[in-house]
C-alpha cells in the first residue's frame, strides 16, 4: 500500500491561513491503514486547526468527510454539495487523492495534508518500510523476493557493492543491505548459482524515466 505521513500542522495551517471555511477530506484506503489520513486523523486535524485559529483570534469553520477512496471519481462525487460553501479543501489522501479532488473541483483551492512517501507495509505497529520502487518490470524472481531496486541504496542489480558489511548498507548501520538479504535467501533456497548470471541493465522506460505511465486493459474497457 501507499505509505504517507501527515505534514506538520503549522505547515497545513499556513496553506489555508486566508480561508474561513475549509473542507477536510480523509480517505478510507491506504492512508487509513497507515494511520495518516483516515476518519480519525481527519477529525483530529480539523479540530487542531480550529483550536489553533481560535487562539489566533481568526476562527475557522470546518467540515469533514471521509471518502471510501479518493483515487476513484465514483467516491468523490459525494463531495459535490459539500464543496459549495468552502474556501478550500484539505485532502488527507495520498498525492493521487489530492489530484483527483483538484481535477473535479476546478474553482477550489485544494491542498495536501500528507507527504506521500513510498510503497511498502508495516513491519510492526507504527513502523512502515519501503518495499517496491514501482520500476514497472519486476525482478523479484531473480533476487529471492527482495527488491534490489528500492531496498539497495544504489539499485544495484549485481550486488552487493563493497560497502556491505555485517549485513548493513554502507549508508547507515540502521539500514539492512538488500544484497546481503538476497544472498542469504538464495543460499537458503539452494539457488546461489542464479546470482552468477550477470543481470543486464534495466529498461527504465518501464519506470518513471519513460514519462508518465498509463496502464490500459482493452478487454475491460466499456464502450
Amino acid at each position: 500500500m501507499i505509505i504517507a505521513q501527515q505534514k506538520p500542522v503549522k505547515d497545513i495551517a499556513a496553506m489555508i491561513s486566508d480561508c474561513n471555511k475549509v473542507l477536510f477530506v480523509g480517505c478510507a484506503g491506504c492512508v487509513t491503514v497507515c494511520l495518516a489520513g483516515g476518519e480519525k486523523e481527519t477529525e483530529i486535524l480539523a479540530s487542531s486547526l480550529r483550536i489553533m485559529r481560535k487562539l489566533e483570534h481568526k476562527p475557522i469553520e470546518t467540515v469533514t468527510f471521509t471518502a471510501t477512496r479518493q483515487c476513484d471519481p465514483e467516491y468523490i462525487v459525494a463531495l459535490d454539495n459539500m464543496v459549495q460553501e468552502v474556501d478550500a479543501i484539505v485532502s488527507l489522501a495520498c498525492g493521487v487523492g489530492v489530484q483527483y479532488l483538484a481535477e473535479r473541483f476546478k474553482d477550489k483551492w485544494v491542498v495536501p495534508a500528507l507527504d506521500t512517501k513510498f510503497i511498502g507495509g508495516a513491519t510492526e505497529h507504527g513502523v512502515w518500510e519501503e518495499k517496491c520502487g514501482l520500476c514497472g518490470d519486476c525482478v523479484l524472481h531473480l533476487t529471492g523476493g527482495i527488491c534490489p531496486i528500492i531496498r539497495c541504496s544504489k539499485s544495484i542489480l549485481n550486488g552487493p557493492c563493497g560497502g556491505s558489511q555485517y549485513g548493513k548498507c554502507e549508508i547507515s548501520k540502521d539500514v539492512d543491505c538488500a544484497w546481503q538479504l538476497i544472498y542469504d535467501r538464495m543460499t537458503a533456497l539452494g539457488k546461489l548459482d542464479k546470482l552468477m548470471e550477470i543481470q543486464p541493465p534495466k529498461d527504465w522506460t518501464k519506470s518513471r524515466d519513460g514519462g508518465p505511465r498509463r496502464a490500459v486493459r482493452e478487454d475491460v474497457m466499456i464502450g
Partner: protein
Amino acid sequence: MKTESKLQQILDNGQFGVTAEIGPPKHSSSEGMRHHAHMLKEHVDATNITDNQTAIVRLSSIAAGVHILDSGIEPIVQMTCRDRNRIAMQSDLMGAYSLGMRNVLCLSGDHQKFGNHPTSKNVYDVDSMQLIQLLRRMRDEKKFFSGEEIKEHEPRFFIGAVANPFADPFEYRVARLEKKVEAGAEFIQTQCIFDMERFERFMEMVRARGIDERVHILAGVTPLKGWRAAKYIQNNVSGMIVPEELVQRLKNAEDPKKEGVDICIEQIKYIKENIKGVHGVHIMAIAWEEVVPEIVERSGLYPRPKVN
C-alpha cells in the same frame, strides 16, 4: 586482447605490478597533481585517478588524466556508476581514449550521502558489473552498449575492476569477483588490506576457483599515519577491517608515521612472497603520495620495468 596499456604489458609479462593513486583536487589547478605525478613517475607503473571520491566534487578524473599523462605516468581512470548514465559514460570513455588514456577502473562509487552534496540524486543506471560489459562491448565487439555499431576508432581500454575481501557476505565476494571476470575484467585492485589473515583466506578461495589465472589481481595497501586514522577506519568506514593489534602497534610506536610505513612495507613483502595469485600491489597513500617512492624502494620493487 592486447591494448596499448603499459600496465597490461607489465602484468602480462608476469612482472609484479605497482600502481598508486592520485586524488584530483577540489579546485581547478593541476599543479598539485603534477607535483605528485613527478614524484611518483619512476616508482609506479600506472596511477589511479579517483572519480569524485567519497562523493566529494573534485576536478574531473579524465581531465586529471591529461595532466598525469603529461607528467609522465600512465593513468588509470576511475569511473563510478554514481554520477553518469550509460550515455555519459560512453561519451566520457571515448573522450578519455582520445586524450590518450588506456586504462579504466570500474566501480560502484560511494553513496552520495558521504560527500559534499548529500542531497543530490544518484544515477546507477548501470552497475559496476554492467560497466565492465559496456567497456568490453565497445572494445571487442565495436559496438555501443545499445548494440549500435561503432564504425571506427573504438576505445580500446585495459579494463579493471575492484574487489573487496573485507565486505560481506565473505564467500560471495569471491563469487562476485568471478562474476566480474566473466563480465570481462582484466585486472582487479582490492580494497586496502589490513586484515592479512582474511585476505589470505580470500585468495585461497580465489585460487580454488582458478580466478587468479584469468585476471591480474593487485593487492591494495595503505600506509597509515597513526593510530587515530586506523581507529577511524575501524569504526566508520563500511567494508573495511582494521585489526585491533594494528591500532595498538601504531599507538605504541615512537614514530607512528615511520611505523605506518614499515607496516605497509612488511605487508607488501609478505603478500609478494607468501600469497600466490597476487600479481602486484596498489598503494593507496591517501593524502600522503610523497611516501610512495620510499615504500616501493624499501619493498624491493624498484626500479620498475621499462616498457615502450
